[in-house]
């Protein structure tokens, strides 16, 4: 249950039997394909989810950076982000385990919408916990969950964002654990979640690895992926980890500054891998944004989906062992990355993914001749945020949108 010193199962006793049950199910259904679980999962991801997603050569970025840039297009997955890989896998697993109800937390709403659509598809009752603040700033995603028949439970505690939603979902789970499965949305949480989620998400890298060899004739020199909790990162990297020639870059949200204000308990970033310290949060030992006393601080990023004070334990381990290079890109560079891909390639990326693109702009010289960048999701959900945040700044890559004045 650990990755070096990271991982583990730091949860209330009441949940331990459920984690054991889940570990058992993970081994039987996921690893051993019992009852054809993985066959059904792959078939549904193909027909319902739209896999495989393309690996696209980005012609204009390749020209701009003087090297071959390929984009792994998870934005084309049903729901608009890589999140469905995990959500569908876990909801299906819950079904195989005989669970009758699904709960999940969501921050920006991407995992919540993915879970809601997977639950609708598989006819599982579903409740999503979401912070009050997030509900109010991510209305379209709330609508989508409701349209898919999921309940959305507002969480008013604390700042009303992802961290509090996770806490509340754990509380629900501690109450209803016998018949309920908690679909954790990233490679975080207690064992076996980090492995389970990584397993479902590793299809990203597995496809990309095959595709890049077919299309470019060889393995890439580097793979770049954005990292919040790390499911897109681990999903993109996992199959490449044994390929020692492939450099792996996990790009976190640098926010507005890498400094933490421990007085107010706020980190204006979520660069956990770069700046975090070891501790226990949400069931696992991992790197965290915390005060010296051990209180978890509020992280911040222009991208709500990266806005989390923890990170997957496996990713912490891969960083400590030097296999993965942590990096971070601040809000401004991420916004420029958003505008650049939209304008040059006709792909509007999620703000999460825009961090990977911001890194590409700054450090392409270090990435070798053949680079794979994962576009973890599409940016339609981020349009309002991008407009607001762009307006506050003087960004080189931004178009004006003065079409509305009568």
């Amino acid at each position, binding site marked *: 249950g650990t990755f070096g010193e990271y991982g583990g199962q730091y949860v*209330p006793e009441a949940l*331990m039997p459920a984690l054991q049950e889940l570990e058992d199910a993970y081994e039987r259904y996921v690893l051993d394909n019992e009852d054809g679980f993985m066959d059904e999962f792959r078939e549904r991801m193909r027909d319902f989810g739209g896999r495989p997603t393309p690996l696209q050569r980005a012609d204009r970025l390749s020209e701009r950076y003087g090297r071959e840039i390929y984009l792994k297009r998870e934005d084309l997955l049903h729901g608009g982000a890589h999140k469905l890989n995990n959500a569908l896998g876990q909801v299906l697993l819950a079904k195989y385990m005989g669970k009758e109800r699904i709960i999940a937390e969501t921050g920006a709403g991407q995992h919540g919408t993915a879970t809601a659509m997977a639950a609708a598809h598989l006819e599982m009752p579903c409740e999503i916990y979401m912070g009050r603040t997030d509900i109010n700033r991510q209305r379209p995603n709330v609508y989508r969950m409701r349209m898919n028949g999921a309940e959305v439970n507002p969480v008013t505690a604390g700042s009303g964002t992802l961290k509090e939603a996770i806490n509340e979902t754990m*509380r629900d789970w*501690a109450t209803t654990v016998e018949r309920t499965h908690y679909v954790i949305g990233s490679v975080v949480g207690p064992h076996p979640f980090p492995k389970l989620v990584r397993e479902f998400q590793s299809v990203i890298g597995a496809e990309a690895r095959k595709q890049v060899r077919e299309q470019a004739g060889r393995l890439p020199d580097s793979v770049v992926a954005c990292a919040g909790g790390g499911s897109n990162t681990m999903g993109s990297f996992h199959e490449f980890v044994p390929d020692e020639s492939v450099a792996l870059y996990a790009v976190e949200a640098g926010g507005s500054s890498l400094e933490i204000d421990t007085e107010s308990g706020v980190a204006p970033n979520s660069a956990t891998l770069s700046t975090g310290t070891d501790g226990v949060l949400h069931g696992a030992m991992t790197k965290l944004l915390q005060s010296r*006393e*051990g209180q978890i601080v509020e992280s911040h990023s222009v991208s709500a989906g990266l806005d989390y004070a923890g990170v997957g334990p496996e990713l912490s381990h891969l960083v400590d062992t030097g296999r993965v290079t942590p990096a971070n890109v601040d809000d401004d560079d991420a916004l420029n990355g958003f505008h650049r891909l939209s304008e040059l390639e006709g792909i509007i990326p999620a703000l999460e993914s825009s961090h990977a693109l911001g890194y590409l702009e700054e450090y392409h010289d270090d990435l070798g001749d053949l680079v794979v960048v994962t576009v973890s999701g599409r940016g339609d959900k981020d349009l309002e945020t991008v407009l607001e945040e762009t307006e506050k700044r003087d960004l080189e890559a931004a178009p004006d949108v003065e079409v509305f004045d009568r």
Partner: protein
Amino acid sequence: MTPEPTAPAFDSDVEAAIRENHPALITYITAGDPSLEDTKAYVEALDRGGSDLIELGLPFSEPIAEGPTIQGAINRALEAGTTPAGFFDLIDDLETDAPLLVMTYYNMILQFGNSEAPCASNSNSEAPRASNSDAASLRNEPTVGPFVERAAEAGLSGIIVPDLPAEEADPLRTACDEHGIDLVFIVAPTTEGERLDRIMSQVSGFAYVQARLGTTGARANVSTATHESLSRLSDYDVPKAVGFGVSEGDHAAEIIEAGADGVIVGSALVDIIADHGAGGAPAADALESKVRELKRGAVRGGDATTDEEQPEPEHP
């Protein structure tokens, strides 16, 4: 605080407090709610009212095992600026008949060494700016030793960690043993079979029997899970105290009658503190009288068990 000199029959103050005051009342409040000064007065009231053990919560920002009541208390305590250092200062300062335990989350224990370590002299506002390479060298390995050492020094008798199952408890178990402090484990309604055996073999002080699935919080009745858990545990010799949802004397009576050695009450007391707001005496009085009611209930339940002639107390 120094433990009472009148408890020679057990190596554990905690176990002694339960066995000798059987049926025992264990009370909980959050330290720093609404201030550490108030907490001092409240703990003294709990003690006066007849608590046999007192748990003090050291607030952590992510209290995943707590219901809304104790979450509220923790938030108030954090907003009041409660720190581990302040918490231990309070403990140093307290004199009670009842032994004291700390209830906190594992990360608070892990990081204590960190904040006490020499590198804490770096001002807090100078956060890690570090690029990746520096980050690793700056990293402190979190350890449990400093916390346990400080707890023992302050005279705490035990530690309860709601997010630390037996599987992850070895380092803390070892440190507690070194410093002669009890590590109380929680037994949930879902804890069964081999895991139950393993946990019961590691328990020291008492087994914290979780009355029902879910989080802490006052409830209107005693769950059937409580009865089931107590009967599942009846073969184990360790003292058993039941918490999660106990709010009235009658609950206490019923639980003791069902075979528990003690009852644990938290949210019902935190509610009283919350209702009174900041600043103390009326709240302290209300706490004291609530504790008396609960203790009476427990004793009533105890009488029913030992004296077969007594009429059954009403069940809900």
